[in-house]
């Protein structure tokens, strides 16, 4: 009932078609000189007081990056990115190391408050621990003490490098090596901060963990990385949210997320991606080139990706699962909405290596305006993956006739005992449906919001409650002005 109520309110709340998070925080920022050379990498590494091994890793990645080209196979159109015209490091100036929340710049606290995220543990939604990252650094991680009691490590990536170097060294780059792709190599060279999480053996993380990313400074790129390790028999549900100010120039975001699950471990990773999408005419917005991958290393382990993609001018993103352990399970649930001039090329890869591995892919693309929305997926079953199972369903919903929806499902099945199933549909919101809602007194925009949320329900239901509510609002907001 409560949920129904929330849903009702959400649709009512949605009245302005502005991007609500477009404000800029006026804080003193320290930035690296513009452009990218080995000096930039030394600068970043130095700022972060990094150990030698990490600097070496960065430099190797950088040298590799220099030898490769930006990929061009995605169905995306954008002017060439000038990598020398980007600032690779920006940090809110802070006087000293923080001991408590009182010492965090009030402007920053205010920023997160405006975004609906309280960093004050007393005032927080119970049950969610947050790592707040602004531009290149983590500002604050909440509930660390509570988590420490369970032996859970949840901290900024920089802190993890200092305090748990053995864990970082052991796992970093094992799922997404710097050679993986152009944007991954770039991230490995210049990544600034991000989150690190380790759940020890047999521990079920009692609260949701969450990282909130915010780009604030102009002309900067954001290159964070997240590393999540679930040891044997552990469980964690992890949320990621992001926003950016409204600016006329495009900004680059190239992140890496790596997840490792050991035997019998499970990770649920949920994203609500709401980077600034650009304006109605396609000016500005974030270029979002992200590499996310999970490795089901252990037997009976499970990784589940749920994403709601509403933001960014360009989205290039394929959260994937490598199913190495026998009986391991990979899931991908996605809603991608594009409006105006937004472009999304997103999907997943499910690589079946272990026996009896299972994967499920549910993708709901919604396109409006002059946008383009592409599902691109790969299901690969290796020779040894006996009895592997995959089920994929890719649905596209079109609003209007100037937008595009495309589906590219690649299937490579090398094992005869395995079954790969694929279903796809393309539909439009029918005039009948719209009129039916309107006849009940619901105006056009709310009707579309209602129908679209219904369409995406299967995926939205996979999100933790607070996020589901947020996501529903976002879907409705994103599609405002898409008809009429």
């Amino acid at each position, binding site marked *: 009932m409560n949920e129904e109520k929330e849903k009702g309110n959400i649709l009512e709340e949605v009245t302005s078609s502005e991007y609500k998070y477009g404000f800029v925080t006026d804080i003193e920022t320290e930035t690296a000189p513009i452009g990218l050379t080995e000096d930039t990498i030394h600068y970043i590494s130095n700022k972060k007081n990094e150990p030698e091994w990490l600097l070496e890793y960065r430099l190797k990645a950088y040298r590799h990056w220099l030898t490769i080209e930006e990929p061009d196979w995605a169905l995306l159109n954008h002017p060439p990115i000038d990598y020398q015209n980007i600032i690779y490091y920006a940090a809110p100036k802070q006087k000293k190391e923080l001991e408590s929340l009182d010492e965090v710049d009030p402007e920053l606290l205010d920023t997160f408050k405006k975004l609906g995220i309280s960093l004050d543990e007393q005032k927080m939604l119970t049950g969610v621990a947050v790592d707040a990252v602004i531009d290149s650094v983590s500002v604050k991680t909440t509930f660390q003490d509570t988590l420490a009691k369970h032996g859970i490590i949840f901290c900024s990536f920089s802190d993890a490098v200092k305090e748990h170097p053995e864990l970082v060294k052991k796992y970093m780059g094992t799922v997404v090596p710097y050679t993986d792709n152009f944007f991954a190599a770039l991230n490995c060279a210049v990544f600034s901060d991000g989150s690190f999480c380790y759940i020890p053996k047999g521990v079920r993380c009692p609260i949701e963990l969450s990282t909130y990313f915010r780009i604030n400074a102009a002309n900067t790129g954001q290159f964070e990385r997240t590393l999540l390790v679930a040891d044997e028999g552990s469980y964690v549900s992890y949320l990621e949210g992001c926003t950016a100010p409204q600016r006329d120039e495009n900004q680059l975001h190239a992140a890496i997320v790596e997840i490792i699950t050991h035997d019998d471990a499970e990770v649920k990773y949920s994203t609500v991606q709401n980077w600034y999408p650009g304006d109605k005419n396609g000016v500005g917005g974030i270029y979002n080139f992200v590499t996310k991958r999970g490795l089901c290393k252990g037997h009976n382990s499970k990784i589940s990706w749920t994403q709601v993609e509403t933001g960014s001018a360009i989205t290039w993103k394929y959260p994937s699962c490598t199913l190495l352990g026998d009986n391991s399970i990979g899931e991908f649930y996605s809603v991608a909405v594009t409006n105006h001039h937004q472009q999304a090329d997103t999907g997943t890869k499910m690589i079946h290596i272990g026996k009896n591995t299972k994967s499920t892919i549910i993708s709901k693309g919604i396109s409006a305006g002059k946008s383009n929305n592409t599902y691109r997926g790969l299901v690969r079953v290796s020779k040894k993956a006996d009895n592997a199972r995959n089920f994929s369903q890719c649905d596209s919903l079109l609003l209007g006739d100037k937008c595009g929806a495309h589906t590219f499902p690649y299937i490579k099945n090398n094992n005869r005992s395995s079954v790969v199933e694929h279903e796809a549909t393309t539909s439009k919101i029918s005039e009948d449906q719209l009129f039916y809602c309107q006849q009940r007194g*619901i105006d056009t925009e709310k009707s579309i919001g209602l129908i679209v949320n219904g*369409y995406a329900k299967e995926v939205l239901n996979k999100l933790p409650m607070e996020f589901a509510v947020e996501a529903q609002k976002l879907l409705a907001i994103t599609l405002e002005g898409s008809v009429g």
Partner: protein
Amino acid sequence: MLLNIKDLHVSINGKEILKGLNLGVNKGEVHAIMGPNGTGKSTLAAAITGREGYEITSGEIIYKGEVINDLAPDERANKGVFLSFQYPVEIPGVSITNFMRTALNAKREFLGEDPIPAGEFLKKMEEKKKLVDIQSKLTNRSVNEGFSGGEKKKNEIFQMAMLEPTMAILDETDSGLDIDALKVVANGVNALRSEDNGFVVITHYQRLLDYIVPDFVHVMYDGKIVKSGGKGLALELEEKGYDWIKEQL
């Protein structure tokens, strides 16, 4: 007069379907409209409720003294005009509960009222479900998705009961109903019938009119109302068919 339709001409894609239709409904009245297939009964319902593509080329639809020819469909609905659809539409993923709450609150917002409190809403749902004898489980399901023909029609009457319209148009709500469901639907309508509202009931069968007794019966033919009378007219039609009326024209 609650609803006053004067010399209404309506075209779809340039083709004239309603050709000078007149109809007046006072508060407290039930009007039945009968007529052969394809004569424009559903077109009339669509024109009154403001469906896109139904172009009023001349004439007026006056509701509560206001010409509503150019009002948006949701505005007409919020002013109290309701249509029970001949072919109810499926909306996957949207539960009836959610749908009704959204609709009720849209109306309340239109009237400058606060959203309905959860408790009050639930109570109302229970009450109206009983009225049309629909199972509790049904309202948790998506609107009309996988509903049987009868369930769809009952759901229309349920929504009517929830939204308490002033002017309700029922377009063949009786088609496809078994006798028990027919009684339930009729009881639903009779319970809502009052001195303050009016009904237009479109039907092919006199049978329904045994349960919802009309004040007037109209025969529609080729885009016009060609004959009007009391409830006896329905019986006459049942007996003789439409040919004798055509001959009179």
